[in-house]
């Protein structure tokens, strides 16, 4: 059977089409794109404001006979203009991925078509592979849109030029972004397949997302929730106490929001010197391992999905 007409491919294509027709998925995806655009504007606006403040401050210091320090904007890499994108990916990007993952399997369960699919000549691995392929395609689509906005911003903004290495770093950031959204999408898929009710299938991954985003950073670095969603404040040094040393050692590898923030800050050149991720595993490797675990969970949940029951059990 050719690749173009394989059962997995058919399921992936049909699932992706169905999900794209959902208004809520379209709403969240649109929100994500709008926020990516806003993040580009925020980066530019905030940096240019700091630059203007410096010019005013320099004039003030000069007139009062005080020494004028160097402009902090000159120490900032142009890539860091995109630092807010990491926050919006961690918020709306992750939530969009959860919803996409949930709807990919939830729509089949809700429509009661699983028994119909179950009597077709295709294996469970084809169904699981098709759903995961659909998720990969849709997540890559979101990441591609975000990448296009980022590239267009750097091409349009005056006085901003990136070196070859910086373009590669930007590509790396988009890769890390895809991994992070993919992790939550796979968890959404796994929960959507394993949960007895549609609501629980959605709430379980959302609870995990809340825990990783707002509770773990507090345990590993005493970071309050609002600081955790500020790209600069989120990179503070943890308090130098035994508790935080042990918390970082034990919980660091599971603190994926931290891993994503540090990987993004490193790739977008806004990671302050001397500050490292709380995990002993490098952030990017940490994310790859997490995606591997989520992939295994999603595969297991999809492979164990009962093809004899239509709809949810409750």
């Amino acid at each position, binding site marked *: 059977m050719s690749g173009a007409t394989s059962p997995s491919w058919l399921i992936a294509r049909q699932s992706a089409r169905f999900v794209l027709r959902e*208004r*809520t998925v379209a*709403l*969240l995806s649109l*929100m994500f794109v709008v*926020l990516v655009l*806003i993040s580009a504007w*925020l980066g530019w*606006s*905030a*940096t240019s*404001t*700091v630059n*203007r*403040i*410096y010019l*005013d*401050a320099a004039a*003030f*210091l000069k007139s009062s006979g*005080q020494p004028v*320090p160097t402009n*902090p904007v000159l120490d900032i890499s142009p890539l860091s203009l995109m630092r*807010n994108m990491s*926050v*919006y990916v961690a*918020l*709306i990007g992750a*939530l969009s991925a959860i*919803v996409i993952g949930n709807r990919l399997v939830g729509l089949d369960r809700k429509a009661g078509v699983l028994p119909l699919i179950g009597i077709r000549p295709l294996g469970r691995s084809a169904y699981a592979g098709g759903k995961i392929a659909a998720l990969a395609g849709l997540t890559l689509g979101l990441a591609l849109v975000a990448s296009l906005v980022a590239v267009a911003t750097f091409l349009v903004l005056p006085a901003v030029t990136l070196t070859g290495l910086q373009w590669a770093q930007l590509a790396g950031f988009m890769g890390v972004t895809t991994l992070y959204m993919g992790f939550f999408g796979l968890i959404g898929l796994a929960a959507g397949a394993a949960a007895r009710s*549609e*609501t629980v299938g*959605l*709430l379980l991954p*959302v*609870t995990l997302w*809340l825990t990783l985003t*707002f*509770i773990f950073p*507090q*345990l590993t670095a*005493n970071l*309050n*929730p*609002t600081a955790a*969603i*500020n*790209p*600069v*404040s989120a*990179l503070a040094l943890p*308090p*130098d*106490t035994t*508790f*935080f040393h042990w918390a970082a050692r034990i919980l660091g590898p599971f603190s994926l929001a931290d891993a994503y923030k540090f990987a993004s800050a490193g790739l977008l050149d806004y990671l*302050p010197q001397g500050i490292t991720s709380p995990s002993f595993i490098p952030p990017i490797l940490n994310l790859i391992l997490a995606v591997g675990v989520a992939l295994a969970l999603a595969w297991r949940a999809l492979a164990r999905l009962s093809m004899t029951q239509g709809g949810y059990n409750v």
Partner: protein
Amino acid sequence: MSDLTLTPVLSPPTPVRTIAAKDIRDALRDRFILIVTGFLGLAALVALVTGAIALRGDVATYEAAKASLLALGKSADAIKAPEFYPLRLLRGAIEQIEIIGAAIAILIGYRSAASERGRQTLSLMLTRPMRRWQFVAGKALAGIGLLASGLALVLGGLALILHLMSGVGLTSDDLLRIAIVWGVSVAYTACFFLVSFILALHMKQSSHALLVAFAIWLTLVLVAPQIGDTLDPDNQVAGGVFKQLNIAKPDQVEIMKGFATFETVRDGIEQASVTKHFERFTFAVLGIKATYAGLPLGPILIEMLGNLIWIFLTALGLGALALALPLNPDRLAKA
């Protein structure tokens, strides 16, 4: 038949109480409320404990530095002692109520409306001798009552831990401040409860209503305050732009006069979110914001009255909307 007069009303307050009591019984029976309250309590407790551990670390560092200076025969005045206001340790917990509390309110609002749809009992209930507003009011009262009880448990538990852990104990003034914060937290979370409740009652598909409510939560709770925070020039440079330029506070004010329009836009974005009003009010009352630490409650309440009015008007406005929107039983089948 008029929308408001389905059948003659025998005893107006009774249906509201009956529906509210039934909803509270249902919510307690399926343990959902206990689970989400436990989750919020855990998040708030983690915030309180990590904050206390960090403060203890600061005190130990200060004591070590002070001992070193004294051993060298120097004065310890050169280093600033860490300030200790017990209520300031509630900062993380307040932020968790701001974010996770609002999300939980959305879930309670959704469940309150969706439960009747899921069991196909809404049309049946509306055939009973009651007005439709009474049905909505009963459900809303139960949901907000459950939120108020959950928040009382969380804040009461935190106050007790703080009293035992701080070593100095809480005064009656501290307890009054926590009680005020509880009242405002109920009004704040009620806003999100009502948004989700209205959407789940009136949208064609209740699962879509939940997602739209979460999109609103993201915008109001996380995005709008984050935009305002990001546009703050002092948050753009590690340690703060003025600190890096070695500019004193009075001179900072003078320089920022040239950025009045920028600051107005930034403040406007923050003000558009009820979350920011909640944060400003609670941070001032608890003395979390340094400028209010140690100030008496009266002047703080007068200064923060605008934020308080904003929060309560939002809750009342949404409550009025929930009561005013006509219910359509034909549309409220399981979707």
